[in-house]
């Protein structure tokens, strides 16, 4: 005990105060910094030989709640995922226009049918004809526009994945760097700044992908995706890789076969050089990237399919004629004859039959596919997922196709027989005396390719991508339907000669006031039901949506609107969770200026008191020296 020890204690107190002020200044100045956790300094008494000799500054400690931090990371990934969904579905919803406005898709479709109604009432009016043509042009243009916008959104998602991958790699690189310093240098382990920085990088990563962080004994961390793939093994080197495809078309789709893939491939490259296909392996379950991938490969693709179905339905509703089927018998076998003159690639013949006993309804669909490379047809070739689909070349006419049709029907176990009694006639018969099959009906949809001379149906809309040829739903080469929404356009010949809206025959010439054609067009759009593929995601899953073209337009708007609302609701819920968690986290880890300042006052007082002690010691020493 002595003045010196008092002086030393006071000096250690001063030092401690200075350290505290230093820390308070750090806390105050970083009050708003991202990833900064409040730090505290707990002074310790300095014990020398069982005696307190002063105060030690102690270690700087980060104040944070590990559990909340972990939850927050999980929920941040979820929020990023729902946020992406909300952003994209809202944008998609906006593409269809403002409800009730003239630019909304349904309004434009309604004005098209209205123009046809007017045309049916005033068939010889040149104004009514031109208005119908213009309304059709507007409709085709609108469908093109929305489809282009859908692809633009997909390209946005693609680019956003690219940028997210970059950020993820930056985060991984900085985690790697900090982690190596923390593990290699024991003294650095308590370095709050480094730990904060590493947490910040991990948080960045957690927004992009759903991860879990496992702390290691050596102060390092390992990072896994929730699905169990290791993103960071404590040493590093794993990177995400993504080749951005700048322009996406409806044909550029994800395919498990990289050679057939039209979109960027996201993969994880391990330090050992192994590559993991993220999408194929289902690496991510949440987070920004997963949200973007789902938009690019599912939601927006589905929106495109809806538009394609709409465009195809619109074109074929107006262009397809349905030749009548006449009852036919051969011995005990009964069935139908149907004339397939002019059957186009992609056109189909549908046989509805019943298996007896039990009256089980079955369906077989024969589709004209001349290109053998396009065979066998996918199950999605028809809207009905349960029918037997037979792709057959009609290059040799009906006579040349009969054998292949028979082979398909036999292979499919239908028990039906086909024949070609004459010309382009196809005869479908049941099994006769065995009576295990009954044919309910045979129908065909044959696309008219000329404006006149083929009946009241006409190729009103054509495929711009195929040199303005009629849309027939061909499978030859590629599926004509995919991306048709981008290419559908008004038949230029019709635009050039609107009188063809009325005139369906030149010999004898259809009178200018004939209403057969416009009335048929209206019926086909608003009365006649069609099957729409379940791929469009409308109606029950796996079941085709049956309805009118006009109804399908409304279902698209309804479905997309509903999805946008749902995404928004989920996102709002997720944001509430994230907010609550970040509030809790901030409550623990955030800098509170008031408490810091209160500490400051204390420290200031302590400093003054220590200084006072030094002053007193000095006075005492002065007294001593003056003796």
């Amino acid at each position, binding site marked *: 005990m002595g003045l010196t020890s008092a002086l030393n204690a006071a000096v250690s107190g001063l030092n401690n105060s200075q350290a505290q002020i230093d820390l308070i200044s750090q806390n105050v100045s970083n009050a708003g910094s991202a990833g900064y956790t409040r730090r505290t300094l707990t002074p310790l008494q300095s014990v020398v030989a069982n005696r307190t000799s002063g105060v030690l500054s102690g270690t700087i400690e980060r104040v944070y709640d590990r559990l909340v931090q972990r939850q927050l990371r999980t929920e941040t990934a979820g929020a990023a995922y729902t946020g992406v969904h909300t952003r994209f579905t809202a944008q998609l919803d906006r593409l269809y226009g403002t409800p009730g406005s003239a630019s909304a898709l349904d309004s434009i479709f309604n004005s098209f049918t*209205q123009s046809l109604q007017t045309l049916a009432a005033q068939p010889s009016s040149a104004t009514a004809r031109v208005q119908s043509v213009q309304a059709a042009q507007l409709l085709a243009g609108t469908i093109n526009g929305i489809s282009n916008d859908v692809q633009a959104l997909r390209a946005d998602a693609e680019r956003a994945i690219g940028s997210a991958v970059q950020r993820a790699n930056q985060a991984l690189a900085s985690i790697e760097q900090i982690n190596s310093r923390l593990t290699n240098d024991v003294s650095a382990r308590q370095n709050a700044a480094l730990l904060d920085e590493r947490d910040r990088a991990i948080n960045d990563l957690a927004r992009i992908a759903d991860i879990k962080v496992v702390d290691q004994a050596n102060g390092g961390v390992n990072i896994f995706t929730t699905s169990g793939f290791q993103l960071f093994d404590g040493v590093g080197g794993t990177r995400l890789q993504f080749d951005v495809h700048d322009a996406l078309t409806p044909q550029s789709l994800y395919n498990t076969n990289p050679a057939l893939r039209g979109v960027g491939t996201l993969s994880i490259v391990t330090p050992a050089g192994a590559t993991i296909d993220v999408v194929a392996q289902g690496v991510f379950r949440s987070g920004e990237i997963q949200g973007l991938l789902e938009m690019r490969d599912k939601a927006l693709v589905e929106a495109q399919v809806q538009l394609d179905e709409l465009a195809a339905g619109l074109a074929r509703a107006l262009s397809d004629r349905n030749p009548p089927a006449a009852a036919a018998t051969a011995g005990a076998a009964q069935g139908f004859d149907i004339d397939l003159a002019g059957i186009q690639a992609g056109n189909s013949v549908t046989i509805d039959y019943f298996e007896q006993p039990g009256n089980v309804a079955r369906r077989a669909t024969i589709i004209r596919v001349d290109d053998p490379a396009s065979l066998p047809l996918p199950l999605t070739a028809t809207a009905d997922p349960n029918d037997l689909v037979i792709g057959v070349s009609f290059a040799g006419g009906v006579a040349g196709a009969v054998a292949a049709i028979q082979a398909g029907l036999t292979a499919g176990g239908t028990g039906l027989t086909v024949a070609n009694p004459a010309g382009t006639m196809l005869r479908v018969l049941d099994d006769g005396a065995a009576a295990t099959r009954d044919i309910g009906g045979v129908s065909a949809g044959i696309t008219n390719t000329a404006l006149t001379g083929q009946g009241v149906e006409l190729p009103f809309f054509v495929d711009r991508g195929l040199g303005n040829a009629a849309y027939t739903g061909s499978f030859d080469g590629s599926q004509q339907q995919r991306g048709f929404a981008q290419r559908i356009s008004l038949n230029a010949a019709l635009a050039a000669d609107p009188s063809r809206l009325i005139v369906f025959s030149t010999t004898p010439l259809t*009178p200018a*006031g004939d209403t057969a054609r416009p009335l048929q067009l209206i019926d086909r759009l608003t009365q006649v039901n069609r099957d729409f593929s379940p791929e469009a995601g409308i109606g029950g899953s796996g079941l085709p949506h049956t309805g009118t073209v006009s109804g399908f337009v409304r279902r698209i*708007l309804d479905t997309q609107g509903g999805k946008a609302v749902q995404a928004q609701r989920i996102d709002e819920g997720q944001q509430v969770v994230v907010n609550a968690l970040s509030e809790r986290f901030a409550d623990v880890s955030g800098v509170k200026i*008031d408490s810091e300042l209160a500490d400051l006052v204390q420290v200031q007082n302590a400093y003054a008191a220590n200084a006072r002690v030094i002053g007193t010691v000095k006075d005492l020493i002065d007294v001593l020296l003056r003796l």
Partner: protein
Amino acid sequence: MSISPFVPGQFSASQATERLTQLRAQLNGLQRQLGSGKKAETFAGLGAQRYLSLDARAKLAATESYKSIVNDATLRINLQTKSLEGVVRQAHAANSSLAPNSWLAANDGQTIGQKSVRGGLDEVIDLLNVDVAGRYLFSGRASDVKPVLDSRTIIEGDGAGRAGVKQLITERRLADLGAGDLGRLNLTVAAATIGLAEDGNPDFGFRLQGLTSSLSNTVATPPAGAPAALAVTFAGAPNDGETLTLTLRLPDGSDEQIMLTARTDPAAASQPGSFLIGATPAATAASFSAALQTSLQRASRTSLQAASAVLAARDFFAGSLNAPPRRVAGPPFATAAGFAAGTAANTVIWYRGDDDFPVNPTSAGARASQPARIDANLTIGTGAQANEAGLRDTLAAFAVAAAETFPAADVNARERYEALTLRIRRAISAPPGGQKPEDIAGEIALAGSAARYALARHRQRESFFLSVISAVEDVNNEEVAANLLSLQTRLEASYQTTAIIGRLTLTSYLR
């Protein structure tokens, strides 16, 4: 839009800012709603009921179309009705113009009545050529074509080789009257036997229908065989006053009787319809034959010629573009054995419109030629064609009256005129096709009343759909205003609180 709850709790600057921003966004949203009157600008924003509004909009659009179609159809129907009323009025006027006592020869061979009917014909044609904005109402499906040519071309021909009614009447007259104006009958005398026989053509002239005789000492063989022939053989002298009646059927189906009375007094025998009983059967036969010839010629030049003209006109008006009228095969016409199809190159086709009805046997009729779909499953026929039987018969009746002339030199003029007007008036009051212009007007009026009912229904529907759309898409102003007010209060309070809390920091109090 709903207001998310504000939970006062732990204050944190960033949270407070976020809440304020949210409140501000809600305020902006409400302001937008108040301004536009609409709940949302996207389909998502309409909420779960968006399908109702989408559906109602589609139905509203359809209803609007139907309404405009009804209005259009009503306009057509009204004009058609007016036209048909005019036609009926003209028919009545013609009926009285051609009254039985209207014979008053004029220098140009046409009576005042005929001239007024000619005026009526022009008016009827004008009425049938009515159009709405270039769409003709009596053309069937060919609504861009003026249905009826002008009366001059119809009657006189086009002057370029296409025959009009007049020429067809002339040709038919020649064919019906035959050589010597005997109505295509061959009259022979051999000793005391007079033979009268049809010439074997199926279409023209008289048909021998019956023969009754009270002549004594005479064998009257009624018409028999094919071609029909009859014979009268005088075995002796008939008594004075005894008669023989020959019934002839005209091509229009009416019968004409020729009665010949035996007379001993030469003066009485010189009257028409009498013959002199001669000294010998041969002399009687000669006298009988001469009297028969005179009577036949007279019947030919009056009733037969009148019937022939009416039939020729009816044939002319039965023609249309795809079924040109039949014409007498020839020349020579006097010996024509039947009809030959006319062509658009040699005959005026008076009706230029759509002739699917009646040319096409499967045609659904003139009314169906202009269907107006006034509701999803309700189609009314508002079509009409100038070549419908009712209108065609009227036109034919008018045209024959306008075409025929009665020169002063013609001794049979008055009788022929009366035979003609009788037939014309009959054709107008009981048309041979069975249909009258009134019937067409009646059918169209039925369509009109269906259209009126549909319009009332569409008006109701329209207001219903509008209310559905409004319920889904529109905001309730009171509700928005109330929300706005409460939001404003909360926002002001929040600003105030934030400001107070913001000032409440130790920093401000440390000196």
